[in-house]
């Protein structure tokens, strides 16, 4: 046999050279494709966020008007200031600025103020009954159409017939503006108020607290149970058909659509156990069921990744199986477990469908005081606002999404931070 290896390859051969160039070209192509793919993904993310910001940033300010209120003792009940007729007070307030207006016109002008203004006025005097008979200056939100006007969302050029505000209303508002009574401070109400029918009063407080409770419950249940189950299945359970079945089953749970978890919660938690509807506690339990498989899968993967040499070392000095797991394997698996947990929780934070089925898409104008009181969650609040006719909710929906995304990014950042912190230890 001719031993081919005896000859050396002539690398200057033009055919070989051409081939080499072609191969390098192919490599550049692959690289270009990869870069394009990542670029595309980033672009989409950018567009997504840019869209949200461009429609949502306006909700971060709210137009206010500074009014001075005279607490007319005639309209008050000094013994119980909360009972006064504050609705009737509002036209009086407007009359200061539009002395020439008729009563009917005044009622119309009162619409510049938010419907919540009367209650702010009331709360002020309830807090301090000494105010009766005095005059106080208060900054109250304007109602939604005027807020839109001030933000330039109502085009003054559109024909009056189809404009949301007519010429007279705009003129009245402009008069207040010229009097320097209009301002547009940061819209803290968006975070501090609970839900309301009125965009200018609506806020995420209830949803934030509800989401927080639900997430806490979800974490407190799914984290220990998930880790416990994963440790048992990975380290202690005998390997046989049943454990195979359980593995498939848990992988499958991770893929079960979230609505189905909602159906389960509806049937079991609400139906059999008679738990209250709309409670963040129940929401948290539902989300925990959903998060559980994610945590189990991540934990098992992390446990698997711990090198067997560590286990052998510990067993070799006479540690028991559980000592090995809890003292050596688990700490080493922690970064992976934490990443999985936080990813699972991030998904839970953004999950809507199962919460719809257990009634967490309710309209509640008070923030919950405990995990057992009814409330909404961020995603369901977004869902509700998105379906509200008032124009102000359009930008508030985007703003709420941005708030949610901020939490999400914060959680991801926490995951990365924890991960690198645990990893850097040795």
């Amino acid at each position: 046999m001719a031993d081919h290896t005896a000859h050396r390859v002539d690398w200057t051969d033009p055919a070989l050279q051409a081939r080499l160039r072609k191969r390098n070209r192919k490599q550049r192509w692959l690289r270009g494709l990869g870069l394009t793919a990542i670029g595309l993904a980033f672009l989409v993310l950018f567009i997504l966020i840019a869209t949200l910001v461009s429609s949502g940033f306006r909700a971060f300010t709210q137009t206010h008007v500074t009014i001075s209120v005279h607490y007319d003792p005639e309209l008050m009940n000094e013994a119980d200031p909360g009972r006064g007729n504050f609705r009737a007070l509002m036209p009086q307030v407007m009359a200061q600025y539009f002395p020439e207006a008729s009563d009917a016109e005044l009622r119309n002008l009162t619409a510049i103020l938010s419907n919540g203004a009367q209650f702010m006025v009331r709360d002020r005097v309830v807090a301090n009954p000494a105010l009766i008979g005095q005059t106080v200056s208060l900054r109250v939100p304007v109602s939604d159409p005027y807020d839109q006007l001030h933000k330039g969302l109502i085009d003054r050029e559109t024909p009056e017939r189809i404009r949301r505000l007519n010429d007279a209303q705009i003129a009245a508002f402009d008069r207040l503006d010229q009097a320097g009574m209009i301002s547009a401070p940061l819209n803290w109400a968006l975070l501090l108020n609970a839900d309301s029918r009125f965009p200018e009063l609506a806020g995420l407080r209830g949803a934030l607290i509800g989401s927080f409770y639900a997430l806490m419950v979800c974490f407190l249940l799914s984290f220990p149970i998930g880790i416990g189950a994963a440790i048992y299945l990975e380290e202690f359970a005998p390997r046989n058909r049943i454990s195979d079945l359980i593995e498939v089953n848990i992988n499958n749970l991770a893929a079960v659509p979230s609505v189905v978890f909602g159906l389960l919660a509806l049937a079991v938690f609400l139906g059999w156990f008679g738990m209250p509807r709309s409670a963040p506690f129940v929401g948290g339990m539902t989300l925990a069921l959903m998060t559980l498989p994610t945590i189990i899968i991540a934990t098992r993967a992390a446990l698997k990744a711990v090198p067997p040499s560590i286990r052998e070392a510990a067993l070799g000095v006479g540690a028991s199986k559980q000592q090995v797991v809890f003292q050596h394997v688990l700490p080493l698996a922690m970064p992976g477990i934490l990443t999985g947990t936080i990813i699972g929780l991030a998904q839970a934070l953004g999950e809507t469908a199962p919460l719809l089925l257990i009634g967490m898409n309710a309209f509640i104008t008070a923030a919950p005081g405990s995990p057992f009181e009814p409330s909404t969650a961020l995603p369901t609040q977004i869902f509700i606002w998105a379906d509200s006719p008032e124009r102000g909710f359009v930008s508030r929906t985007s703003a709420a999404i941005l708030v949610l995304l901020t939490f999400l990014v914060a959680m991801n950042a926490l995951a990365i931070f924890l991960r690198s912190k645990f990893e850097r230890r040795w």
Partner: protein
Amino acid sequence: AAARDQIRIVGSSTVFPYTQAVAEEFSNQTGAPSPIVESTGTGGGMQIFCAGIGEQHPDITGASRAMKASEFELCQQNGVTDISEAMIGYDGLSLAVSNANDFAWDLTLEEIFLALAAEVPVDGEWVANPYRQWSEINENLPATEILVMGPPPTSGTRDAFVELAMHAGCKTLDYVEQGGFDSAWINENCSRMRTDGPFVEAGENDNLIVQRLQADPNAMGIFGYSFLYENLDTLKGVNIGGVEPDLDTIADFSYPIARPLYFYVKNAHRGVIPNLQEFVEEYMSDEALAAGGYLSERGLVALSDEDRAALQDAVLSGASFQPE
């Protein structure tokens, strides 16, 4: 379970905004704990409402249709025997297009039917709807694609639209008038919306339809009047038979698509669930219900004064409801 001190309300997504408004007003006025209002859909609401008596069951359900006999049956079985019905007013449906569409739309119910029905008469034959462009129905209409976004069959809005617009339009067709068909035939043949594209079932979220109309000048949408009202600067109503949709035309039914809205109260819960009676009173008050009340500000078409008085009497006294 701890005793409940909030009112719980479920039911139709159409009644939802009105109940929201009353709930917020009520809680602001009285300082009572805020009622919990959930939008579950009429059917889902009935199911939960009729599940039983007691704290774990809701007190009120809203409905965009009257309670069905079968649902009433369910209520009876579960001990919910004493219910009051309140028909609070009408919800106007409106057809609308984007302002960017410069045609002055004015359709007859017949044209609406011809555009949207699954089967229509063509040359004396009852056939699958062949029309793709408005101009094929009437040459005075623009030669643009028919594209109407509306509610899905699971929604009460759809049901109302079929009954009020489609059936009415169907009945005025020459073919039907001359054919002398009975109402069973009409129910069977005039109820189906076309599924070949021009009619798009756009989901329950009316705001989405609004935004899609704004994006697509050729599309027409069917949704609650309050959404049109809020967006008058970008949308315009489609006249029907020369009538423009607004609060007045809907209230006097000259704009022909409006449907009644209801809510149902468990009388057994009155006096047991704190504030329930007071809440119903607020709902029934003139401030809320009357024309010019705060519900009509949100687009509810109010009842006439006599009807309202009768309603207030009946509901506040807790008159018991029996389905026909």
